[in-house]
């Protein structure tokens, strides 16, 4: 569906978090992720600190209400007391700071005169101290790409958080291996007003980051958070978009969600809905003899069924916000987070789940619900159910206002899920354990800047005679490094290598071929054959198709019967073809080249280079003419 983003007042900005390839930011531990089971575990709790108003920060309070402890997995060989918050941070990793400064200079940002490390309150347990250390390194970056210019107001150096490894009822599990890995955070302004350009800009920034050669590569080493809002809606911080290809989808779906929430608000206003009360009603009796297996199962032993009435919400909980996600799904996310319950039920989906019509009617009656109202209910532990329903009421009342400001998690399909309310702005204070670091002109002069993408493109065109388009594509993709390695190793035609990497593999992938199975060594072997004239370049796609099925290059070539004609064999074939088409040759002389080439190429089918065939045929025809 076509949305008029300008009319909607779409505003998008994003943050890129890139891990740096150096040891941890505030200790000497290696920036190394571990897969094996952790030998030690430490359990902790965090308490929200109070702000100057004597009030607890909104987001901090939300986390505290969840009242879970944190279980930290640690590896004594590569994690120290700093990650465990049992030793003050060591002085900042100077190499990481230099990389951050290098990135800042590449993005045309102005490094600050003196770097101050701050504590940013994060109380979900992903930082053992309850805050993330972060430092502003440079301001006002700006780059031009694709004829568009966009700003990056801040570039920060910060520590990565611990990896969440799952969640039990009592504890959230974290692995401390990732905690403390240096990250560069690049934040753009809310300068984008369509869903496509942010993805391109992110790709370009990623390219610049990789140009330094000092950043980590691979899944999870670069992450995007996207800020999205529309006019009348509210800012959402969408966390953890790991794939660039998902950025525009996430934005489009978020816009749809906000439009739907605004429609719901308007409908509620039309119905003159009032705020729902946090009046929890015990409806266990309604379900005392229920045939609903899921209610019985969730209630368990000694559990109860509690309900709340949401005035004038009838029919709205089933309204779709994003593909497959309804308003009820949003409410359920709040219930899960604040009440630790498995899920919620609501009258919009009844009768269903084996709940009878009679039970539905009794439920509505007990809850005092009119036809225009909805009833949300939860089965299970009483305290949890109560907390879950209170959270549902809170979220329902937000629906009266429209779109609440939230931090949301990006799901793999481009949908998003509630994580916590958007934190207030003022939750940073100085990290007194780290002295400020002056950034002197001398320090900046020592930083050597790598080749930028535009320069890389020019070099590729000049040195390898690549077309502008192909050079551009290589620079923007992450294949430049492998391209240059393959040239050095195989001496094959650069255009062939570039085309294979940027076009052939892409179209094979589109056909469903598992190109991720094609290793660099196989490519090298293949191009070496082509370079030595043992394989026609026309055969490359067919061979790769088999290599992707984990078949060796030699075997693939044999299987396809692609062993190239030797020059004598080819000569023989040319002579034969000319002989058997004598009439044509006699009639048209050199004019017969065209049709005969067609016949020959059909016969060699990728087993000979077209140029060679052409040359031999020409020679044969001249001979015959004489």
């Amino acid at each position, binding site marked *: 569906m076509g949305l008029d983003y300008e009319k909607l007042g779409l505003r998008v900005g994003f943050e890129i978090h890139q891990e740096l390839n150096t040891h941890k930011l505030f200790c000497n531990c290696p920036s190394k992720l571990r897969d094996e089971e952790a030998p*030690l575990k*430490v*359990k*902790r*709790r*965090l*308490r*929200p*600190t*109070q*702000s*100057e*108003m*004597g*009030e607890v920060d909104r987001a*901090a309070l939300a986390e505290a209400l969840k009242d879970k*402890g944190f279980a930290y997995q640690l590896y004594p060989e590569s994690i120290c*007391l700093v990650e*465990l*918050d*049992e*030793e*003050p941070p060591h002085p900042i990793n100077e190499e990481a700071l230099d990389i951050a400064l290098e990135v800042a200079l590449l993005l045309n940002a*102005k490094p*600050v*005169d*003196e*770097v*101050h490390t*701050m*504590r*940013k*309150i994060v*109380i979900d347990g992903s930082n*053992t*101290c*309850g*805050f993330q250390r*972060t*430092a*502003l390194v440079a*301001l006002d970056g700006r780059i031009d790409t694709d004829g568009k210019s966009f700003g990056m*107001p*801040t570039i*920060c150096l910060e520590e990565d958080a611990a990896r969440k490894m799952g969640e039990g009822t009592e504890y959230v599990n974290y692995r401390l291996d990732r905690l403390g890995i240096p990250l560069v955070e690049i934040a753009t302004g809310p300068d984008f007003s369509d869903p496509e350009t942010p993805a391109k800009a992110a790709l370009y920034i990623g390219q610049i980051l990789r140009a330094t050669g000092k950043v980590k590569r691979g899944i999870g080493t670069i992450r995007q958070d996207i800020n999205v809002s529309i006019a009348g809606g509210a800012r959402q911080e969408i966390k953890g978009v790991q794939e660039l290809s998902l950025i525009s989808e996430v934005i489009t779906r978020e816009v749809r969600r906000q439009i739907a929430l605004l429609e719901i608000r308007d409908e509620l206003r039309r119905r003159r809905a009032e705020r729902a009360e946090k009046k929890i009603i015990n409806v266990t009796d309604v379900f005392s003899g229920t045939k609903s297996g899921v209610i019985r199962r969730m209630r368990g032993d000694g559990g109860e069924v509690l309900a709340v009435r949401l005035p004038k919400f009838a029919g709205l909980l089933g309204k779709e916000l994003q593909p497959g996600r309804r308003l009820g799904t949003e409410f359920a996310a709040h219930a899960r987070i604040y009440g630790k319950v498995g899920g919620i039920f609501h009258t919009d989906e009844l009768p269903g789940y084996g709940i009878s019509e009679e039970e539905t009617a009794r439920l509505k009656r007990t809850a005092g619900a009119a036809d225009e109202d909805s009833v949300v209910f939860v089965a299970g532990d009483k305290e949890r159910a109560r907390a879950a329903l209170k959270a549902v009421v809170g979220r329902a009342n937000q629906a009266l206002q429209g779109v609440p400001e939230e931090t949301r998690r990006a799901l793999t399909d481009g949908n998003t899920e509630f994580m916590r309310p958007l934190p207030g*702005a*003022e*939750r*940073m*204070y*100085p990290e*007194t354990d780290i*002295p*400020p670091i*002056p950034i002197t002109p001398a320090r900046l002069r020592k930083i050597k800047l790598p080749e930028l993408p535009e320069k890389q493109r020019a070099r590729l065109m000049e040195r390898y005679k690549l077309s502008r388009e192909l050079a551009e594509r290589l620079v923007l993709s992450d294949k430049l490094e492998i391209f240059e390695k393959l040239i050095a190793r195989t001496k094959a035609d650069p255009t062939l290598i570039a085309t294979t990497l940027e076009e052939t593999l892409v179209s094979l992938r589109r056909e469903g071929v598992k190109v991720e199975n094609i290793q660099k060594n196989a490519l090298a072997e293949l191009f070496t054959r082509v370079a030595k004239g043992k394989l026609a370049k026309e055969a490359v796609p067919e061979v790769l198709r088999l290599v992707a099925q984990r078949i060796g290059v030699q075997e693939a070539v044999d299987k396809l019967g692609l062993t190239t004609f030797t020059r004598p064999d080819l000569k023989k074939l040319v002579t034969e073809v000319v002989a058997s088409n004598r009439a044509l040759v006699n009639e048209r002389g050199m004019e017969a080249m065209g049709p005969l080439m067609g016949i020959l190429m059909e016969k060699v089918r990728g087993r000979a280079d077209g140029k060679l065939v052409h040359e031999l045929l020409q020679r044969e025809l001249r001979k015959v003419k004489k």
Partner: protein
Amino acid sequence: MHYRKLIAMAGYKGRAQQLLKAASVNVGDRIKVEDAGRTYEGVLMPRTELGDSNHLVLKLKSGYNLGARIGTGTKISLLEKGKPPKLEVPKLEIKPDPSKPNVTIIGTGGTIASRVDYRTGAVFPAFTPEEIYSAVPELAEIANIKVVEACNVFSEHMTPELWAKIGGVIAKEINEGASGVVVAHGTDTMAYTATALSFTLKGLHRPVVLVGSQRSSDRPSSDAALNLISAVTVAGKSDIAEVCVVMHGSTEDDFCLIHRGTRVRKCHTSRRDTFMSINDIPIGMVKGRELKYFREGYKRTKPKSKVTVDGKFESKVALLKVTPGMSSSVINGILKAGDKGIVLEGTGLGHVPESLFAGIKRAVAKRVPVVMTSQCLWGRVDMKVYSTGRDLLKLGVIPGEDMLPEVAWLKLMWALAQTKDPKEVSKLMKSNLAGEITPRTRPDVFLKPAFAPTP
């Protein structure tokens, strides 16, 4: 650090200070700093002691701080006067509950609870019961809290005079009806103060609990709240009529140990579970506000009695760690300085190199008692096993049993304030007065694994 102090000592010196004065700018004001085509706008922040004198610290709208270098052409202009930070805490209606114990928290200079002003980065320590309740609301469920300040110094600046002063405040509070007393103290010298109080408080019949934190209370991961909750529990609800230290028992936030004041030592520079009982097991633990006792041998509370303070200490006592080849000139120097007693931290069972014999002999001859402890920390000195030990005994060295060196040092300071007679001093040093000496060495008291230490 208190905000008012922060403004006064904003930390700016030299040219920075001149420029700020000329522009009539104070910490907390929103200002513009221009230099060589560059402009920063933000709230002027205090300069940390760690920083140099040619940068101004600004807090930007984003919440980040940065330092703006002051050059020859730097221009500062005031954009907006700062509002003073709000110091009020939410009005808490807390009525004394007669069914709950009354616990007095005595401040000595450390912070046990605090609030952060994210606008300025200032950390406000909690002083009043309201402030402490609002930071650690659980306390209201345990006891009626009263807060008194005895002194205001960093733990490393504690002195014998201050021990006496703190002792006086404790005695007053208990004599006026407090069920127990909590002393908030920096961790560095907490064990010393606990030991000093153990010797000075006479007729103690209520719990006296020292508590502190290894992670400052302005961070969400602070150990302060659990320590304070546990300390107030011990002070209000336990039957321990002794001076003890209540701090994290493990690196996890699950329980606190109750250490006897004369047995406890800070053993790690930074860990939460830094405090350990040496040569003895802790008295018990607090887990989830429940008390659990590990042993029978401790003094029990009594409903009524009178606490007095015998707070005199001979401050001129030396504690000397013995090293191989150490020369007697060290002891000569100590004697020359006029010290009235010497505690040696000997090697192994309580030995010193022969090169120290002359010095020791001179000390004893000058009626300066010499007490032997061991730098092993764990175990008991025994000077009868080897000839060196027997020689030292003959020289008149007093064996310090299984006392910690610093405990022996404090006890000797206290004993010398009681009597100058070396024989009397020797007698006092050898008798167990406050749990500092145990007649039998338990088999279950040597170190503990650093992880999973649930007792």
